[in-house]
């Protein structure tokens, strides 16, 4: 695993905090309600450690939206949350435009768009703070359970590193626990750390 200094980790947490804040603002507009969120916890893990990290969550069936981003470093970004929340989110997105019995027809497609907005809000913060540009692939959506989460089956490099950001979200009446997961190769992690160093240098911190 690449060495991550305390300053780099702290800076990354803060940058991700800003990204998650931007994502929460988007989420609040989607669900038309106030969104409270916890400070994100940032973990660097080996793929084999991810299931253990997700073991603390109180749900088994998961909804996963993923999208690949390429730029100064490449990453597969994933938004993971309880499957039971998917239709609730779709219902909030579409409001009264679609009757409740038809919501499931929109789930696949609406969740892709939901993930697209949230993941882009987060990645855009990174891009702006690092003064760089990322290109995103089209989002994809699937169901998984904690044991079969395809994180371990996807390939983004020889020895992928997984950056897990855990955020607790509360939307007035419903509690959602979501995870943002960024998978990247060791090379991309080094490039991410370079971007953090440049950012810190621009701020006159190092």
């Amino acid at each position, binding site marked *: 695993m690449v060495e991550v200094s305390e300053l780099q980790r702290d800076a990354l947490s803060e940058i991700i905090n800003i990204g998650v804040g*931007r994502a929460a603002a*988007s989420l609040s*507009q*989607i669900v038309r309600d106030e969104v409270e969120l916890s400070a994100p916890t940032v973990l660097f893990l080996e793929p084999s450690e991810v299931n253990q990290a997700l073991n603390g969550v109180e749900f088994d069936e998961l909804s996963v939206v993923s999208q690949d981003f390429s730029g100064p470093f490449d990453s597969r970004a994933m938004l993971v949350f309880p499957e039971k929340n998917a239709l609730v989110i779709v219902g909030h*997105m*579409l409001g009264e*435009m*679609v009757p409740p019995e038809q919501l499931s027809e*929109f789930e696949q*497609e*609406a969740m*892709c*768009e939901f993930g*697209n*907005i949230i993941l*882009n*809000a987060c*990645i*855009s913060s990174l*891009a*702006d703070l690092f003064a760089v*540009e*990322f290109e*995103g692939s*089209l989002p994809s959506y699937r169901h998984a359970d904690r044991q079969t989460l395809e994180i371990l089956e996807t390939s983004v490099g020889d020895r992928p590193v997984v950056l897990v950001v855990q955020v607790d979200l509360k939307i007035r009446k419903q509690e959602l626990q979501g995870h943002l997961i960024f998978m990247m190769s060791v090379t991309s992690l080094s490039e991410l750390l370079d971007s953090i160093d440049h950012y810190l240098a621009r701020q006159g911190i190092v």
Partner: protein
Amino acid sequence: MNTPVKPLFLVVDDSKTSRLLITRMVIEMRPDWRIVEAASGDEALKLAQAEMPDFVSMDINMPGMSGLEAAGRLRMIDQKVRTVLCTANVQESMRHNAEKLGLHFVAKPITPNTIAEMIEYFER
């Protein structure tokens, strides 16, 4: 006396949900507009060949041709078309690209406020 032609609004987005949200909100705010939908840049260009829209809401990240390219091609056909890029890609660089191309930029998610901003630009 000729009846004035109602404005034609083209919604280009690969997301059915986004097209639904945009069209429903625009219908509410401008019930007299005619609305057509395209799920890709290619489809948008085909529709524009049949009748050039007055106003366009264009997503950027779509399968096939990007929204930026499709918007550029629409302008080559008719410079008067007013296009808004409606995208989740809210990076500063994307806003600058839009500005350089003379396109207006609104950030998803789609809300009554984003649609009002879009309409305000179209009618400016």
